[in-house]
């Protein structure tokens, strides 16, 4: 945006006092290279025409209509902060968490530092889903804590993992290995964990012609399938005593969560229905259909990793079935029957496309949205040409509401403090994980 328009001033508003979104709170602690993109983000924030305002929440600190009064263009890029629900019995038992909460917990997100997942009353965890987030949480549960101790993992999570009794993790998918949503790098990584017993049933690896069709034009699927096949054929027939175990379980759909017999109100296992794939690659994806055969798998922890979901906001059109803001190339469409593009309102990222893709996917997404904005500016369509108060108006309003705005240099105080604390214990940073600490350091 700054590059496309020489005179443009861009303000970034975030609910958290820390910037960078999922790069800080979603990327796993043992993936520091993925976080390098923060350098590029910081350069943007340092641009003199750009400002970051943290601790400002859309909806409670300021409304969307107020923002639209102050700014010519408002772009909603707040991603997906909620989860898809399974909607099956027992989902609210203790010990059943969404993977998103678990990830935010070990990454020190201030909303989840008190999650306190129970990792001590069981040796088995079931992860529902086989995407990269599922692999992340499985890896964090199975990796030796000493290896995690030199990452930026939140200290409360490291402490809990050091005392964890979990030794067996199941990654369960409704469909087969050809449909597994993870990618090669992450799969390679988890399969390489030292002294890990990996179990993949050979029968699950049998491919149908529909499977072959799916893989023919999909390089990612082919390489993932190859990795799974190799892992299956090269693993021992059984684990050695005390060895950590990773099981890839396919063709199982969760039917209900079962309460533990020993701990009332706590998860004791999951009841699954075996599935079979229906449909062909040409008609779209193959889908999992139930077979009427059921089996139980015992566990003391469940992490649901079946996808994120966006949260609607007052004044913003929202498509509840797709979980995105209705739009055409980033221009938000009104909710009226005739779905006209709204003036000056745009959307970008997961809120626009749905919660899939990697960091880099958003690059093209942003290009598209900015192209729409530039087009509208040039054609003088949908964007007001009257003078607007912008930053000045925003800050005045926030001050009158006694909102403590955190600037980018305030964040840099948090950044330095975290790095300083980390340097004392051989970590790249020791994250501040409570709102109180974050705001206290930022406003020193």
């Amino acid at each position, binding site marked *: 945006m700054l590059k496309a328009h020489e005179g443009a001033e861009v303000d970034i508003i975030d609910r958290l006092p820390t910037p960078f979104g999922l790069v800080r709170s979603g990327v796993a602690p043992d993936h520091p*290279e993925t976080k390098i*993109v923060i350098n*590029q983000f910081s350069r943007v924030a340092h641009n003199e025409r750009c400002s970051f305002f943290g601790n400002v929440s859309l909806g409670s600190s300021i409304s969307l209509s107020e923002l639209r009064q102050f700014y010519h263009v408002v772009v909603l890029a707040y991603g997906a902060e909620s989860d898809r629900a399974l909607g099956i019995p027992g989902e609210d038992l203790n010990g059943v968490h969404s993977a998103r909460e678990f990830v935010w917990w070990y990454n020190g997100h201030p909303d989840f530092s008190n999650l306190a997942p129970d990792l001590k009353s069981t040796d088995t965890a079931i992860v529902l889903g086989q995407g990269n987030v599922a692999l992340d949480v499985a890896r964090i549960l199975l990796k030796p804590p000493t290896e995690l101790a030199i990452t930026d993992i939140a200290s409360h999570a490291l402490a809990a993992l050091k005392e964890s009794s979990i030794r067996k993790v199941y990654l369960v998918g409704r469909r087969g290995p050809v449909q597994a949503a993870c990618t090669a790098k992450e799969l*390679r990584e988890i399969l390489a964990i030292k002294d890990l017993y990996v179990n993949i049933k050979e029968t699950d690896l049998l491919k149908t012609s529909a499977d072959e069709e799916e893989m023919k034009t999909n*390089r990612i699927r082919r390489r993932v399938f190859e990795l799974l096949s190799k892992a299956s054929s090269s693993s021992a027939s059984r684990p050695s005593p005390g060895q950590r175990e990773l099981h890839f379980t396919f063709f199982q759909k969760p039917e209900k969560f079962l309460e533990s017999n020993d701990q009332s109100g706590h998860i004791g296992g999951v009841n699954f229905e075996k599935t079979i794939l229906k449909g062909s690659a040409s008609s779209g994806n193959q889908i999992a259909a139930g077979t009427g055969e059921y089996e139980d798998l015992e566990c003391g922890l469940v992490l649901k990793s079946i996808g994120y979901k966006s949260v609607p906001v007052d004044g913003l059109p929202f498509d509840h079935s797709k979980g995105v803001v209705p739009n055409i190339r980033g221009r938000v469409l009104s909710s009226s029957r005739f779905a006209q593009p709204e003036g000056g309102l745009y959307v970008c990222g997961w809120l626009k496309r749905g919660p899939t893709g990697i*960091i*880099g996917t*958003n690059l093209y997404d942003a290009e598209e949205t900015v192209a729409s904005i530039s087009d509208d500016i040039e054609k003088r369509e949908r964007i007001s040409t009257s003078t607007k108060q912008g930053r000045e108006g925003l800050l005045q309003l926030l001050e009158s509401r006694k909102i403590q705005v955190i600037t980018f240099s305030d964040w840099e105080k948090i950044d330095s403090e975290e790095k300083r604390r980390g340097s004392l214990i051989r970590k790249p940073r020791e994250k501040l994980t409570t709102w109180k600490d974050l705001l206290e350091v930022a406003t020193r």
Partner: protein
Amino acid sequence: MFKFSRLGARAAFKGLLSKAPPTIRSNKSYYTIFQNDCVKPSSCKLFSTTATEISLGENEETKKISVTFFNADGEQEIKVPVGMSMLEAAHENDIELEGACEGSLACSTCHVIVMDVEQYNKLEDPTDEENDMLDLAFGLTETSRLGCQVIAKPELDGLRLALPAATRNFAVDGYKPKPH
């Protein structure tokens, strides 16, 4: 992510990932050291200076090859010292090639398409790690590589690289990238 502030990007890049001794620019010098990179401490002396470029270390290999980048706006020919990666070369010449992970094989934003198959074949095969990232690249073709992994060597003189955005708009010299 925004494609500007190249100044910062170059400074941060710092020749860490090329095998040639780094050329230090006069301004900002963040020298971020990543775990496994190839600059040996003994061959890398840091100077801070307000003057123009200084080439560090003695080397007889200041031989350069010609590389032409094709993007949506046209083409640009640059000279790349042997041992430098295409990503670093692009940044030094203000060519818009993203490098979000700064060459650590953790993204696919420096994806380039080698326009001539014979040149593609002169490159060393991609490692598993590079292939894992190529899996995710937009507009992947049979001659796609990551710019940070293509290192200049004499046999590549005359190398022609297309940025994926270019191939969205036109077929260069009749070359049509096939989706992989």
